[in-house]
């Protein structure tokens, strides 16, 4: 056994765990006894491992994570796709595979995404109260945060939504594109969620004056496009629940 092999075995050795190859471990340990340099390396290796482990386990936890996990909603809400949508996704996956196969002579393959895909994925983020990256009731501050994160920040709120106080924002990803999410307090524990993305990157339909409405489980969504930005508003309830926040921006 050379030193290189001994390093390899010793760097993964955990005294509390049986070695995969006890014979080779014993040989490496004998080598440590005979070679002070190797022994010194192993001591330093174990010390550094202990420091890294200790620091990793001291990573600070978000203050409210535990209480959010223990609140009734997250444990009761089931964020899984229906068997129908799983079948659709399986079919879509097959199309992707075929697309990749044919891409050699058809140019770079672009995965087709529908408004339904976008809607479903965005709503899946808010089925449980979303984890926000910045909590603030100051819209200007939220926009600055989003701008710094290179996410869509120059957006206009629908007229009726402007009356409500934001609670925070975060950046999501949809098919490699950033989507800004801003949440608004609309009474009690209820929130309205506004997703904003570059209109070229997501398949939103409708215009500012004529939003398109669609239900996603118990959520109602309204989508529209305005000045190159794609908007998706999601609130719990029916079409009327969504309409009350709209109006020209």
């Amino acid at each position: 056994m050379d030193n290189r092999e001994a390093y390899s075995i010793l760097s993964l050795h955990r005294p509390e765990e049986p070695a995969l190859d006890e014979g080779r471990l014993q040989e490496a340990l004998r080598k440590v006894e005979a070679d002070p340099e190797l022994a010194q390396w192993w001591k330093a290796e174990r010390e550094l491992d202990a420091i890294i482990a200790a620091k990793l386990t001291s990573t600070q936890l978000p203050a409210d994570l535990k209480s959010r996990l223990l609140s009734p909603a997250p444990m009761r809400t089931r964020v899984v796709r229906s068997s129908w949508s799983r079948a659709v996704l399986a079919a879509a996956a097959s199309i992707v595979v075929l697309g990749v196969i044919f891409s050699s002579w058809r140019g770079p393959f672009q995965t087709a995404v529908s408004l339904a895909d976008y809607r479903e994925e965005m709503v899946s983020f808010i089925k449980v109260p979303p984890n926000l990256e910045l909590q603030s009731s100051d819209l200007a501050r939220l926009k600055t945060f989003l701008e710094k994160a290179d996410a869509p920040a120059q957006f206009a709120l629908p007229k009726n939504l402007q009356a409500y106080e934001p609670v925070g924002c975060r950046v999501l990803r949809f098919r490699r594109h950033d989507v800004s999410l801003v949440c608004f307090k609309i009474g009690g524990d209820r929130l309205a969620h506004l997703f904003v993305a570059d209109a070229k990157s997501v398949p939103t339909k409708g215009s500012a004056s004529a939003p398109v409405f669609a239900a996603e489980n118990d959520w109602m969504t309204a989508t529209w496009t305005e000045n190159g930005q794609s908007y998706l508003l999601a609130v719990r309830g029916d079409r009327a629940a969504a309409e009350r926040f709209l109006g020209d921006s």
Partner: protein
Amino acid sequence: MAEGDNEQLVEKFYAPLYRFGLSLSRKEADACDLVQQTFCTWAAKGHQLRDKSKVKTWLFTTLYRDFLAKKRHDARFVETENEADFVEPLHIAPSVVESIDAAIVQKALHLLDERYRAPVTLFYMQQHSYREIAEILAVPIGTVMSRISRGKAELRTALSDTTALEARKIVRIEGGQAHG
């Protein structure tokens, strides 16, 4: 499973799950999502787990699968097998060791190649045997060990780089005109 059992489970595992999620996703909000989703899945499917001694592995496996699913959804993620031989770890200067803190460890982990980050994080969390890590990541135990070996070497390089970068930031703030 009873409500009280769920509470005990959250109490016991939310912190290590969050730390694992953070090292994978790099963002606090995404890590929180992963942990929340893991417990939601547990609430819905946990009763199907017959061997209750496997709860810990089940939770970590679920979180890791959710992360991969989200990642594959977001951008094509190709898992390649390019296992390297053992790489002798870089010697770390005592000054670097002294300045390592939790944030630096997380930043260094984020610099690791995708395929090394998860096994190295699980290795340093010291909660899982090699067999359990293999089970969580759904790769053979030999692959886990070679990835940890290689990942540890990469982590040392990343720690040195990150510590140096942080030191430069401090100099810039304190000195006001240092180059960074």
